[in-house]
């Protein structure tokens, strides 16, 4: 248990319980010890990796490979079904940017709540409000209800909050997909600065971003770590291996061996 390690996953797996009917879920709670009423779907399995403090890890993989679930596990939003997960430091998740906002209240009030969720004191958030607003670059709209915001504006504000939360570990899920080029540039610059003091985990479908930020990349495929290593090599491997792939639903099959319960 070295404290040089920011994130350590050892044999982490996550299974979702798929039910044919909603009522089966109740039956499972009541009679679960006698019979099983669900089908297990293993989204992630045998995930092993370590991220030392100050490193930037990139995660690549196709849709449905389990990248977001992995990030949710790291952030503690959902619990692993098996395995061991060790996190040293305060985490700020930048997932599904801005969808955690309440539409009816102003951006400013949303910042107050989001900041509290990240563990900041009210006084601290108040002090940082001007900086957060400035970084988000949405001007006087910060005092308007969030439901009037565009997707880009929401993302800007959400990113800005997490950026100013004093986190040790920043977990970023395709965060910049909706931002415009100028804002993206600003975020990238921020993440590069952040990397000097903190740990970064980035999911992205854009090779440029991964190449610019990351020290190391893991490729998640069908819920497992397919390969991991040096950035340019991983990106090349990922591109060549997936180049000829057919985009059909077979990857999501309930019965495929990749997602079946371990025997």
């Amino acid at each position, binding site marked *: 248990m070295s404290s040089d390690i920011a994130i350590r996953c050892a044999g982490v*797996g996550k*299974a*979702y*319980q798929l039910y044919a009917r*909603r*009522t089966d*879920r*109740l039956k499972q*709670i009541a009679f*679960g010890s006698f019979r099983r009423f669900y089908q*297990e779907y293993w989204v992630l399995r045998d995930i092993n990796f370590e991220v030392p403090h100050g490193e930037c890890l990139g995660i690549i993989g196709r849709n449905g490979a389990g990248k977001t679930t992995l990030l949710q596990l790291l*952030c*503690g*939003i*959902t*619990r*692993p*079904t*098996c*395995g*061991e*997960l*060790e*996190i*040293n*430091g*305060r*985490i700020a*998740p930048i*997932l*599904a940017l801005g*969808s*955690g*906002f*309440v539409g*009816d*209240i102003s951006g400013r*009030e949303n910042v*107050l*709540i*989001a*900041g*509290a*969720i*990240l*563990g*900041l*004191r*009210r006084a601290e958030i108040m002090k940082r409000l001007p900086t957060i607003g400035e970084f988000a670059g949405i001007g006087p709209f910060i005092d308007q209800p969030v439901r009037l915001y565009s997707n880009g504006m929401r993302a800007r504000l959400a990113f800005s909050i997490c950026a100013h939360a004093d986190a040790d570990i920043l977990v970023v899920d395709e965060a910049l997909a909706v931002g415009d080029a100028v804002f993206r540039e600003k975020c990238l610059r921020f993440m590069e600065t952040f990397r000097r003091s903190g740990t970064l985990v980035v999911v992205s479908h854009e090779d440029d971003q991964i190449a610019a930020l990351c020290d190391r990349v893991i490729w998640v495929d069908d819920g497992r770590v397919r390969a991991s290593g040096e950035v340019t090599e991983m990106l090349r491997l990922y591109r060549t291996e997936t180049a000829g792939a057919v985009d059909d639903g077979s990857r999501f099959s309930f019965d495929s061996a990749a997602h079946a*319960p*371990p025997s």
Partner: protein
Amino acid sequence: MSETSLQHDSREREAISARRDVRLPAGDHRWTVLAPVTIAWHHRELILAVLRRQLADRFSGSLFGWVWAIASPLITLAIYTVTFAGALRLPVASARGGAINYALSTFAGLIVFNLCAELCYRAPLLLHEHFAYLKTSIFPSETLAWTAVLRSLTYAGISLTLLLIFLLGVNRTLPATVLFLPFLVVPLVLLLLGLVWCLAALGAFTRDIAYLMITIVPVLMFATPVFYRMSDIPQGFRTFAYLSPIATAIDMIRNILIDGVLPPLWLYAGFVVIALLVCRGGYAVFERYKGILVDVI
């Protein structure tokens, strides 16, 4: 849950506590006896932030804001006074103190009952309501029970203040036993917290719990001494009425606010014990399912 998960349960729990509580000194506070209270202290900033937002939502979202909050209990109180002072013949035992006192006693009963009823309606949907927070941020879901209870308690507090003002106006004095009020409110809050935790966890799995509440709470209203006093119930049935902690809470509130006597010790002690058990039990249920709640809502 599969066998592997059981095997890894304790280790997993350690790992999670390490992640969530990095700012705390060593020791897992989430599993101690006092956990329902210590988590509130630990997350006080968050609870207050959400509470502040919800209250502001309710009161400053409308043109007259706080006026509504005061007007609606005031109108209820006025209607009861007028109705019971003139229009209705009262149950014998309750009428002893006069019509005004009966109206006030009913109002006191309603404050407590509405507090409980509102939470019973809301609790099963509590996690669904905060879906976005739970899915996309590191929101500690157990704090939602605290915000829900404190929010409802604020509304009840407004009504209670009106009641006290009215009592003062009618009787020119308040009984000294009013000072005992905090000692009733604290166990009542714990009782409600336990109830909310339990209902919220079950309600996450199925919406039936919410429908069940809509069906049984109105029935409970008549089974609970809101419009009558505990002493109106025939001796044989009274024992059953005392089994409901809500009924005892109403009875004791009336004791200290209207009758000016302290509740019997055995009743108070029993209430506190039940409140503590329900609180810790409800929290235990919530913690038990907390890990999968996010996956099912």
